[in-house]
């Protein structure tokens, strides 16, 4: 009897010791947005299931990018998991800086990830980051103002329709701008928007030999169209407006239309923050007449494991938990279906509970319409829709968008901006050895 009790006690102590020995504390670098903050609040569920603790380092997007880039290039090991995007993942995966996610459990069901997301977060067929949420871009418009203008938004409008509708919806006396779009300098801000607009006019950043293409007529047409439309119907000072500035304008009822990230849909339809929550319609991002490419982008915030970490196994457990079907259900249970992280899994869009969300279908359609391997009409040597997935692009994209923003602000002409963009891009590509 005594022997049995001792054995049992010993086994219990051993198992306790084993679980303590394997319990890790993971440091996770992440961005500050609604979905990520929600995940932080639900981390206890992960700790309860695995015993691993989690320390969060939340930073503003640009700070985070600089911070994690410094750490991963120096193998600093400050983080066990990093939140990165579609731009970094293939580049870092190629350089061997990330742990491949090629051995995820069968229960995780990697085939359930939306194909566009899986492709954008892989290099050479290997997944290097798991999508936490995905987004594309689409049109959000005021149904009441559209009706007042006597127009009806098609499900897939052209830029020419959008320009006419914007003109008709503009009411300067009541401070209503027909359209609000990003003009702020920065490759991820106005740079991203004008790149996808260029795609939908048939423009491209580079030809097959990495020659800059800003001297081609498609770019002149796209940029002149954008500046003309914004001068007619856009808000004053749009050259410095980014996502947040336009969100603020739209929520206060000062925009007829806004084309931006699909995640904005949950903000503009939230009656706590938006004065127009019940008057918002959605449509696919536009294309120019005769061009078979829409101006929607593709982006995912994803979780990846830096190669320098000593806790890769525990990190994988966390990633499996945070990007699983079970996590989506956990959020739905606690916060409702409208707040689950969108755009990552096919099964979410087959779920009858989620189908009722007004922007769910449009988000999925927008994501499905995006093709990072063929972002524009002509062939390109790069991958990426609103960016070019090469390490040099962050610098080049920001400089080009600064020239464009100067044209939006009226500090130089469109032709001057394009000529400068052409010269600086070719110089940078030559210096980097592409040409």
């Amino acid at each position, binding site marked *: 009897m005594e022997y049995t009790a001792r054995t049992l006690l010993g086994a219990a102590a051993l198992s306790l010791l084993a679980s303590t020995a394997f319990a890790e504390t993971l440091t996770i670098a992440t961005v500050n947005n609604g979905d990520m903050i929600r995940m932080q609040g639900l981390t206890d569920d992960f700790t309860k299931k695995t015993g691993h603790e989690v320390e969060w380092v939340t930073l*503003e997007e640009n700070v985070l990018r600089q911070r994690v880039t410094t750490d991963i290039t*120096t193998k600093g090991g400050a983080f066990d998991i990093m939140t990165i995007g579609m731009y970094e993942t293939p580049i870092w995966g190629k350089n061997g800086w990330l742990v491949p996610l090629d051995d995820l459990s069968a229960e995780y069901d990697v085939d359930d990830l939306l194909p566009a997301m899986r492709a954008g977060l892989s290099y050479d067929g290997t997944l290097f980051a798991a999508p936490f949420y995905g987004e594309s871009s689409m049109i959000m418009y005021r149904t009441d103002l559209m009706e007042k203008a006597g127009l009806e938004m098609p499900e897939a409008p052209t830029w020419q329709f959008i320009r006419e509708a914007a003109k008709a919806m503009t009411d300067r006396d009541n401070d209503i701008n027909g359209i609000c779009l990003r003009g702020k300098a920065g490759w991820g*801000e106005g740079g991203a928007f004008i790149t996808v607009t260029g795609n939908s006019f048939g423009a491209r950043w580079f030809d097959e030999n990495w020659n800059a293409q800003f001297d081609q007529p498609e770019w002149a047409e796209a940029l002149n169209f954008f500046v003309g439309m914004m001068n007619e119907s856009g808000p004053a000072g749009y050259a410095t407006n980014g996502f947040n500035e336009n969100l603020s304008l739209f929520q206060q009822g000062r925009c007829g239309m806004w084309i931006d990230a699909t995640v904005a849909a949950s903000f503009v339809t939230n009656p*706590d923050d938006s004065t127009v929550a019940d008057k918002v319609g959605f449509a696919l991002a536009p294309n120019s007449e005769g061009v078979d490419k829409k101006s929607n982008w593709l982006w995912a915030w994803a979780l990846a494991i830096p190669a320098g970490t000593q806790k890769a196994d525990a990190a994988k457990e966390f990633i499996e938990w945070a990007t699983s079907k079970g996590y989506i259900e956990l959020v739905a249970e606690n916060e409702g279906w409208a707040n689950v992280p969108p755009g990552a899994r096919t099964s979410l869009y087959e779920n009858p509970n989620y189908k009722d969300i007004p922007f769910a279908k449009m988000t999925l359609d927008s994501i499905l319409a995006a093709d990072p391997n063929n972002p524009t009409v002509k062939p390109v040597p790069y991958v990426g829709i609103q960016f070019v997935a090469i390490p040099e692009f962050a610098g080049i994209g920001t400089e080009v968008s600064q020239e464009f923003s100067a044209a939006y602000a009226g500090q130089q002409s469109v032709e001057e901006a394009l000529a400068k963009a052409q010269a600086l891009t070719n110089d940078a590509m030559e210096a980097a050895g592409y040409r």
Partner: protein
Amino acid sequence: MARAVTNNRKAFNTALAWLVGLLIFFPILWTVLTSFKTEAQAINDPPLFLFFDWTLENYSVVQERSDYLRYLWNSVFIAGGSTLLGIVIAVPAAWSMAFVPSRRTKDVLLWMLSTKMLPAVGVLYPIYLLFIQLGLLDTRIGLTIVLMLINLPIIVWMLYTYFREIPAEILEAARMDGASLREEILYVLTPMAVPGIASTILLNFILAWNEAFWTLNLTAANAAPLTAFIASYSSPEGLFYAKLSAASTMAIAPILILGWFSQKQLVRGLTFGAVK
């Protein structure tokens, strides 16, 4: 001889001083006011000044989401430690430059100041690599050393300026009375330069408290100070201005209070030697 000032002129000067003061203070006031608004009120157009439904919700959300006291302790440790360490090194350095200058003293002073002219990001990678090798990444000690080093030129310059105002004969007299070098600096020079040293400490404490490049780039979860606390509430995709304002108010409150209580020393130190 004092210049006669008319009452009208006095009133005008006072009003102008208040106006400039309010203008400078307005962004801080606006941040504090925004921290008591809802997110919708924070972006209201026209902006709401005082007449809105005041709420403490943002503070409760921030408190719930972040371990404020840990960030605060890190800030106090790093700003206080780097300032005190800087003073300990700078007092003898400034003494030697002020009282036993060499032909190259001015060049050395200029060289020290020139280290402030290099953008910090230019040395990010070497310092980051050094920190990895020395195991100082995400440690309070590491950050204390870095902030001490980047503020040291300012500390030396300030102390050098104050020490120059002290007559060298007094130190000579102390030496003739048999004071050692340590006693000369500790018991003769330091008490005479207390206002200058106090204002140097205060100014450098504020500089270290507000430093937001190294404190963001060399920390993760353990040593992150209040600058990282604020950065965690900034977002380019989502309007969280009210929460960001609450976090900012909580981060600047300790330094504002310190500045308020020590403004006399600060002004006295900054004008030390201005009138002979």
